């Protein structure tokens, strides 16, 4: 409190602090951008900026690691995962937030408890389930999109986020809709859904980033490039002999752009979604 009072009336100090924080946060990204335009010699000598901009790095990175295919795969997998996660999270969050039934809080506590299980621990059971499904069903699960998306469509964090938001929606809306003859399904999709825009976009953003950045699971369930994501493409620039830093950074820039773009597009809703769900610190 004393610090806050001391800063009041001295906004320049706040701006300097924020500026320093922003600079530190942006520095790795700026370095990645600059290194992506360097020659290999410049990355070896650790110069700060390239003498001349090497656009060819992007061309080479795109072509050498088959980035076109990986990029397309990542987009498709992320889109499927976002749609699936939103759908199932919405259906799970609504009854936990708005319906009274026995054991509701226990179910919710159980879902929350799964947040404490590290992803690596569920990897083996997930893989065994997927291989069993691959053999037992007529669909190809391994080396295809189902293995990459379906296991992650039930997300405890997304359910929690949406449930927190839905609990804050006034009950009057439900009562009015109920008087007009709406059931829970209609209320969910016609009234609640439009209200949940911000948390839905937040959930979508988190899911998109998670899917886009995943590496260990895709490598486990795919053996060919047909469905492999862009993170696998980035790995191609590191060999046993050494890393091609300039190409790696050009590849990383290409891989980062969709995430940045998505964030800039939904920045306002993202912040709103986080603050409304009670996650704000």
């Amino acid at each position, binding site marked *: 409190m004393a610090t806050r009072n001391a800063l009041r009336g001295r906004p320049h100090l706040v701006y300097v602090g924020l500026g320093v924080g922003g600079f530190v946060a942006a520095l790795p990204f700026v370095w990645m951008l600059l290194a992506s335009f360097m020659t290999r010699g410049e990355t*070896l000598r650790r110069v700060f900026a390239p003498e001349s901009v090497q656009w060819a790095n992007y061309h080479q990175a795109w072509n050498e690691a088959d980035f076109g295919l990986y990029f397309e795969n990542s987009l498709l997998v992320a889109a499927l995962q976002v749609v699936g996660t939103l759908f199932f999270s919405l259906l799970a969050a609504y009854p936990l937030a708005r319906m009274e039934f026995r054991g509701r809080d226990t179910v919710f506590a159980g879902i929350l408890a799964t947040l404490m299980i590290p992803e690596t621990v569920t990897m083996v059971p997930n893989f065994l389930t997927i291989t069993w499904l691959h053999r037992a069903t007529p669909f190809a699960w391994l080396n295809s999109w189902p293995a990459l998306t379906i296991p992650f469509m039930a997300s405890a964090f997304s359910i929690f986020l949406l449930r927190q938001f839905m609990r804050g929606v006034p009950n009057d809306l439900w009562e009015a809709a109920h008087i007009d003859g709406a059931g829970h399904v209609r209320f969910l999709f016609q009234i609640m859904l439009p209200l949940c825009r911000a948390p839905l976009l937040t959930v979508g953003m988190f899911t998109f980033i998670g899917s886009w950045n995943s590496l*260990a699971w895709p490598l486990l369930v795919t053996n060919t490039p047909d469905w492999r994501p862009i993170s696998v493409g980035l790995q191609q620039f590191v060999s046993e002999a050494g890393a091609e830093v300039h190409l790696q950074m050009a590849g990383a820039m290409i891989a980062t752009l969709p995430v940045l773009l998505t964030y800039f597009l939904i920045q306002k809703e993202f912040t709103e979604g986080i603050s409304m769900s009670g996650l704000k610190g």
Partner: protein
Amino acid sequence: MHGTTFFYAAVLLVLWGCGGQDASAPPNQPVGLEELDPSGQEVVFWYQHTRERETALEELIAEYNATNAHGIVVKGEYAGSYGDIYNKMVVGIQGDALPSLVVAYQNQAMAYYRDGGVVDIEPYMSSPKWGFSPEERKDFVEAFIKQDFIGGAQVGFPPNRSLEVFYYNADWLAELGYGEPPRTWDEFAQLCRLAAERPFSRSENKERSLGFLIEADASRLASLVFAHGGDLANADGTAYTLDAPAVRQSLAMLRELLQQGAIELMGEEYGDQREFAAGQVLFMLRSSSGLPFVVSAVEDGSNFSWSVTYPPKEVAEPVVNVYGASVSLCKTTPQQQLAAWLFIKWFTEPAQQARWVRASNYFPVRRSTARELGDYFEKNPRYQAAYALLDYGKSEPSISSYQQVRRMIQEAMVEIVEGGNIDRALADLQQEANRTVYE
């Protein structure tokens, strides 16, 4: 990145242990091997190669597919780094989702074998119909094949090998008044101190000048320990010897040099290559397979004269850490296993070995390959210099828990080199490492 890989590996290993695999399961011996027909089999091969090496390997595979008499079709698949492949194999063994052939280090192959994921290759090697003739068998460097013979089984077969060689900046050495690389560790230490005081004339950043960048890595330590006359495990591979005098001497030397500012711990992956190429580090300990990478990096960097040799030593003969992943035959069907073996056999023939050497810069495993590499030796004198060290090769432990122990070694190296209590750290390391042997 490595941290994550090891974390995954550790978690998977624990889960694997809980998975009820029968560690005493008998190895899958081919029944009626001579009568088997491998015709038309599909062989899936998981490897870690990328870019030029992957292209060359795929070309060789395509040639095999087009020319083999049995209509065997090999499908090469990039399966990630060694760590990723290990993870895939660990879960693949449980889920029965295995390839036919997989790249594996000796300790990894042993772990797969123990859990019934790979089979003993010896029956294939000695098969009168499908195996090697006595002349062919003699042509192989026996020490390489023996690296994969663990616990009475041939758990892998070497398609190539590398050495951990000592890279040195010859121009900088000359500036320091030395015409030869250091031959003893005392000389090495002296030169590291000199390098820290007198930067290389062609270095662009004279503020930073070091003798050596040590990577906290078990293979780097193994090289140092071997050259101090020691080993990381006992001769029969039943226990680690990580508190032995040679380990202590190696780490004490590094610690002293670090405290004097003559060397540093490597903080960035491949940082030693980058700084060596930039003329900021005088020596480097690295795989011989990285030679072409260093050639182009130095050309792009400070462009100086450099070469490779054996590490400084405290023993009469040079000792060089020889390593390299082998390929293991996964437990599939007898026909598929045979087909996979036939591909390995073809791949290790001198003509194919020579092509693979040219593309990968690995060392061949058959002596007669050298006859086909005359022009390559001529064009790549540093490769030839490294090749001449093959007779001095010594391997790291083939104990199946070595993967876990590597991580422990890495942590102990950092602790000791940064000033921790060397006696306590090595005693703890030895105890923890040996516990993994009996688990």
